[in-house]
């Protein structure tokens, strides 16, 4: 309105700006201001909650605080794996280093980091914008402050971040068991992997404020939950034992020019594993440089056809079911026997062997023939009952179960093959556990590798020995122990013998399976020895396997000496584990098992004297001056302290039946004398030394019946 008035006024042009126009423009401002006010109300009051949470969501985050990984220790508390926190990740942005400072930068950094200038220059040239100088640099206090000073000086061109570093202070020793945790602190193999959850701890969490570029903003008083360091694990492994075993296995591999080897030492009573390793070894400091074969704990992961060491299983079955006596004679076909369309061979030919010597001298033919007394199903069940073809549950990755066909799928020769440890693949660990059962009186134990776990919260879980099952009677185990002792004393395993300690053990020499063509290599072998000591109250058990030895290949020649050397060293280093009394006992162990003589028809007084000499006890049935019968037959192996039951009578009866005496290995003249004295008519074939008699010794026959004895001029196997 005023504008119109102004326009009609001549003097208007001299006027200042009219208030009317100013009001109109001001109204325009008020309109804009109202809109701004409306928007402020909308944004800040009506939609406040929504925008506030959206704004907070894009700024606030939670960051995990890494937890220090737990320590792994051996049975004596020695450290196998530990996490160090005095480590830094050193990174640089080479493009941010000022040109004129560059040479000074390299000089000082190379001094503090102890790397050559040349190497440092090389690392800085890897990328123009960002390079790792050291992913985990371990620092002492002095270089810590030096390094922090450098960071301050050259930031942001140089950046430090505290990191955890996993250290394996024992290097390759027990590395295959302990396993490996990667750069991210995640356990990937061995105990590190299996118990990763326990070792990892519980990462903490903190609320962080991050700007739009993802950089953390340092604000005080943000909520924070500290990390809980990882749990601790103690193993049953003894680093000192492990060191000896690794050294001796490596030596054995070298001496026999083997491709590889495996060894395990256990405590048979508990199933605790003191040491296990497979050659080649690896060093966790250079994890990436080694093959999978070296990194694996092949004692657990590799299954192979072990051969004769498995003969204990059919023997256990045969002895426990009383299908055979150890004195039964077996014709061993002079080293070559056709079964179905296959030949079974013995490495040294035998004619007749007692069942005992079949095991002692490891005759394949003898074992196969004896095993004919077992059904397929029985042999299968016994194999399974000894823990073969099933995982032991040891806390290691990739455990091999081993292969064993169901009896329904067996061919005509499978049983024979299986009796001598073929047609089944087993792991070294399974062998150790099976022998453990023989050693401890018949209990198959679970392998004990972890002794104790302390959880991040501090809960202690102790692991006690666990029995899987009783797989044979104590007497069967005892009989096997005696046979295995003889195998070391005078059989295939003599090179395992240790002075003053009775060693029980069995050798194995198996042809290597040809994975490429199927079947077996004719000239490549797996040689093994499984044994324990002291033989009748075993404390230590060991299984040694050498793969594809190039020189000698018999288990008794190649593996037994390794067992011998390891055990000798362990007896010295572990002497504190045994009392003097026990040590003294070992010295007299040789006498402990005796073959029971015949007491029948002898006067009681003489018998008593003899039994006392043998350290046996006697219980009499009835009364009288003469022994009429004995509870344990002649020729049985008994132990010191066993009780023998004898039936007495007032006079020796004139028996209608007589017992055929043992005349094997006697000269013909002597044999005829013995047979005649016993009331048996000798029938003679050949001349020289008696090799075979029929009926066998101990058979009751009618007085006056004949016994055929076969003699040869050549003196048979040496005894």
């Amino acid at each position, binding site marked *: 309105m005023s504008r119109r008035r102004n326009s009609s006024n001549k003097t208007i042009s001299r006027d*200042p*700006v009219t*208030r009317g126009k100013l009001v109109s423009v001001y109204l325009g401002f008020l309109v804009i201001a109202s809109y*701004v006010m409306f928007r402020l109300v909308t944004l*800040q009051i009506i939609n406040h909650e929504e925008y*506030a949470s959206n704004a907070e969501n894009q*700024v606030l985050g939670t960051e995990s605080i890494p937890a220090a990984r737990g320590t792994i220790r051996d049975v004596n508390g020695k450290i196998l794996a530990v996490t160090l926190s005095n480590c830094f990740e050193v990174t640089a942005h080479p493009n941010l280093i000022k040109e004129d400072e560059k040479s000074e930068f390299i000089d000082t950094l190379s001094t503090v980091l102890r790397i050559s200038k040349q190497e440092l220059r090389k690392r800085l040239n890897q990328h123009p914008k960002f390079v790792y100088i050291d992913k985990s640099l371990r620092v002492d206090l002095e270089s810590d402050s030096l390094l922090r000073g450098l960071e301050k000086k050259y930031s942001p061109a140089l950046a430090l971040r505290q990191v955890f570093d996993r250290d394996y202070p024992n290097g390759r020793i027990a590395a295959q068991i302990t396993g490996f945790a990667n750069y991210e602190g995640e356990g990937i193999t061995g105990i590190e992997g299996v118990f990763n959850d326990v070792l990892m701890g519980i990462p903490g969490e903190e609320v962080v404020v991050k700007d739009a570029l993802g950089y953390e903003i340092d604000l005080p008083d943000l909520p924070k939950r500290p990390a809980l360091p990882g749990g601790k694990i103690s193993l049953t492994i003894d680093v000192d034992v492990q060191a000896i075993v690794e050294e001796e296995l490596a030596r054995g591999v070298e001496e026999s020019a083997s491709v590889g080897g495996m060894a395990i030492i256990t405590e048979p009573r508990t199933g605790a594993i003191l040491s296990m390793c497979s050659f080649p070894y690896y060093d966790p400091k250079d994890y990436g440089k080694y093959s999978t074969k070296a990194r694996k704990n092949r004692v657990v992961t590799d299954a192979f056809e072990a051969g004769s060491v498995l003969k204990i299983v059919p023997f256990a079955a045969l002895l426990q079911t009383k299908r055979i006596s150890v004195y039964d004679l077996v014709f061993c076909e002079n080293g070559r026997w056709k079964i179905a369309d296959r030949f079974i061979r013995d490495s040294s030919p035998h004619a007749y062997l007692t069942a005992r010597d079949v095991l002692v001298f490891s005759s394949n033919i003898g074992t196969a023939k004896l095993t004919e007394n077992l059904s397929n199903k029985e042999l299968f069940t016994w194999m399974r009952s000894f823990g073969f073809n099933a995982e032991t549950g040891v806390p290691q990755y990739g455990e091999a179960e081993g292969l064993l066909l169901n009896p329904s799928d067996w061919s005509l020769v499978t049983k024979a093959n299986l009796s001598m440890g073929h047609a089944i693949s087993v792991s070294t660990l399974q062998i150790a556990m099976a022998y453990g059962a023989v050693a401890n009186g018949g209990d198959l134990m679970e392998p004990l590798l972890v002794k104790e776990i302390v959880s991040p919260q501090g809960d202690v879980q102790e692991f006690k020995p666990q029995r899987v099952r009783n797989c044979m009677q104590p007497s069967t185990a005892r009989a096997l122990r005696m046979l295995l002792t003889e195998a070391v004393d005078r059989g295939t395993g003599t090179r395992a013998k240790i002075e003053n300690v009775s060693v029980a053990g069995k050798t194995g020499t198996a042809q290597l399976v040809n994975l490429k063509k199927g079947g077996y290599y004719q000239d490549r072998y797996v040689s093994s020895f499984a044994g324990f000591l002291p033989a009748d109250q075993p404390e230590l058990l060991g299984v040694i396997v050498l793969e594809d030895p190039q020189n000698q290949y018999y288990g008794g020649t190649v593996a037994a000496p390794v067992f011998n050397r390891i055990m000798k060293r362990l007896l010295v280093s572990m002497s504190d584990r045994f009392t003097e009394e026990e040590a003294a006992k070992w010295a007299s162990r040789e006498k402990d098992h005796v073959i029971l003589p015949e007491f029948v028809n002898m006067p009681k007084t003489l018998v008593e004297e003899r039994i006392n000499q043998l350290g046996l006890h006697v219980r009499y049935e009835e009364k009288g001056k003469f022994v009429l019968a004995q509870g344990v037959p002649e020729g049985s192996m008994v132990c010191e302290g066993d009780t023998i039951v004898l039936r007495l009578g007032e006079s020796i009866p004139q028996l209608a039946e007589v017992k055929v005496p043992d005349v094997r290995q006697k000269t013909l003249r002597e044999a005829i004398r013995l047979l005649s004295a016993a009331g048996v008519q000798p029938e003679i074939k050949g001349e020289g030394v008696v090799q075979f008699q029929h009926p066998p010794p101990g058979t009751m026959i009618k007085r006056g019946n004949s016994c055929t004895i076969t003699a040869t001029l050549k003196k048979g196997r040496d005894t």
Partner: protein
Amino acid sequence: MKKRTTINENDSKADGVLFGIVMFLAIAGLITVYSAGSERSVSFYGSPHAIVIRQAIFLILGLGILFLTQKVPYQWWRFAALPGWILSVGLLAVVLIIGEVTNGAGRWIQLGPVKFQPSEAAKFATILFVAAWSSKNQDNLKDFRYGIAIPLAAALIPALMILRQPDLSTAFLLAMVAIALIFLSGAKLKHLVLVALPVLGGAVLAVIFKPYRLTRVKTILAGELDRYGDGYQLYQSWLGFGRGGLFGTGPYESYQKLRFLPDAHTDFIYSVIGEERGFIGAAIILVLFLIFIWRGYRISARCTDRFGSLLAAGITTVIGMYALINMTIATGKVPTTGLPLPFISYGGTSLVLTLASVGILLNISKFTSNGKIQSSNRGW
């Protein structure tokens, strides 16, 4: 209707309310710049204080100049009008040439340690020129050439040059201020409408020929904000206001300044005020600017001299328009390039020149009639 003929400096004192508002806004600006610019300050200068120290130095410098300009009789500026305008256009040309050479969008001229923004100078030079022209040719303003063409050209030449930088917002604002000033000076409304249409048309063309402007227009028309594209900055600004709520998060507690909100310490500082000081703080700033404009127009209305009146109105309009457009952009729905919030945003050129122009305004306020002569001026 009566003409005021005497000019007496002692008639009234400088407008204390206006100066108080300016000081309040400048101090509030300094505090907010400290918070909003701290992140950027660290990454650019290595210290969270660097930006606020620079701003404080410029504030002291600006207040010094304000002290001088409020002493200088505003009539003297009449003589600086034409040379000032030519100089500012010349500087804009320099910026354009530098921009061509360095093949980039340039808005600054580096003068030793400080960067000078010619577009800031251009807007005051244009106002000064239009005020001087309109008062000198007051009798011929009904003539299209004198009333519209020359003053509009004086605004459009720098505006187009600023558009080339490219700085659409400043160019548009300069044109708007010029049109407002031409309107206030008493040009024919018919003429004004006649030229306003092509200007609007020009703006439409400017939008069409630059695709990025077109997408902005599309975004507006769609009514949806692309939170991760063109609308990112605006959405972040909303988040700041929204998070502030009624009372704000408290000083230095802004999250949005953590590089989420680009230009938090300059063009979008109002959002940081909204976040840290809440609705109450943001509303106070808005109201203070309205009071500032009222006081400025009051000076214009009470000024007995036409040049002084036009100059006061021009200075007030340009500052007021910057303030309200800035706040509209920060709270509004149109994603666009920003403008500084006068007295508050970080930026030396803008602060110093704005304070200098406030000094001129204060000087003009000394020559007002106190509303005695024109009864109809009561209330201003």
